[in-house]
């Protein structure tokens, strides 16, 4: 059975889907990803679907499920690299992938996660925890 590799880049897990997804592969990916998020304490998951020519309702549901699982584990999911033809097909099919964040490419996806993370920290733990101000407070005394 084919397995989708999960790469860790800094605080982010990168999943690049290069093969046709089957039920087994999708389940395995969900399991692996959940484990890796917990093990690494990552706060962002980027799913790269640049290589996918076809995104049907099955893949759409898989993406939604992964997003939900990640959300529970406090990780933001961003789907990146959707091809124009795929986007058009999804719109024609009426699938709008609700609840999934998207970005044009991996770079933008990482920016998006960083921004969301900064927002999150800013709201929940006060301004002091945000990266920039943190440096300042330690530098001033």
């Amino acid at each position: 059975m084919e397995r989708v590799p999960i790469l860790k880049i800094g605080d982010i897990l990168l999943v690049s889907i290069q093969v046709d997804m089957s039920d087994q592969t999708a389940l395995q990916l969900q399991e692996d990803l959940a484990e890796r998020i917990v093990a690494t304490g990552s706060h962002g998951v980027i799913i790269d679907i640049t290589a996918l020519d076809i995104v049907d309702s099955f893949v759409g549901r898989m993406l939604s499920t992964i997003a939900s699982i990640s959300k529970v584990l406090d990780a933001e999911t961003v789907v990146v690299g959707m091809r124009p033809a795929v986007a058009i097909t999804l719109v024609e099919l009426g699938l709008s992938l609700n609840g999934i964040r998207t970005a044009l490419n991996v770079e933008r996806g990482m920016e998006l996660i960083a921004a969301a993370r900064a927002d999150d920290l800013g709201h929940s733990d006060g301004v002091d925890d945000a990266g920039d101000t943190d440096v300042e407070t330690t530098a001033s005394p």
Partner: protein
Amino acid sequence: MALNAEESGRFAAVLTDGAEKVTQRWTEAVAGSLRGRLSQAELRRQIEELHRALLTVGEQGPLDLDAEHAAELRAVLGELSRDRARQGFSATETAISVFALKDVLLEVLEARGGEGTLRDYVAFSGLIDQMGLFTFESYVRTRESLIADQAEQLLELSTPVVKLWEGVVAVPLVGTLDSARAQVVMERLLQTLVDTSSPYAIIDITGVPAVDTQVAQHILKTVVAARLMGADCIISGIRPQIAQTIVALGIEFGDIATKASLADALRHVLRLTGVETARRPRRES
């Protein structure tokens, strides 16, 4: 309508006897109808070519436009019609190049006199009619392909995607938006988003004369597709009447940002991306 072997022979004889005179009279008859829009030499060349092709077919077998050995004649006729169509002549002016042969034939046959002249003339006439119809069909085919080419070019021309700023592209829509154009616009826009990796797109509908539910549907689809790819769309250039129509039709743009002008849309995007516009400092000073 095809001529039998005997008639073909007589037809060839008529054309060969005083070939010079036949082409001369033929050219004159055609030139009269074209009113000098084609040079005499060019016309003469075309007529002589046609004359030669007719003779060649006549020599090789019974004169029949559908016959295999008449391929050259068909090619010459097709070439003639294509030229005429491209040069902007009317269908009548094209067909007359062939039909003028009838007058010439009548003259020659009358001069020769003799038994069966009328029967021969009617038979020859049938063949010329067939040639005329063939010319007309080629003419129409050429014109149709011209129109199809132009429609395609128009489609290309009317859907440019321009880069307004780093990470901001705009599509100024001009003209009626039908399904075919909407599809082209959508594909072009999405491809540009990928190519330039721009997270913002502005769809400017200033040039769209009317927005009905179908047009709105197309625009909404484009916006949703762009969102799926991770880019945000802003709709701009909504004229007052269009705004009224949109409300009257009950079209919901949901959470899609709409702006009155392209400038407003650009300012909105720049603010989102955190670019400072020169407006604020100037006001402060």
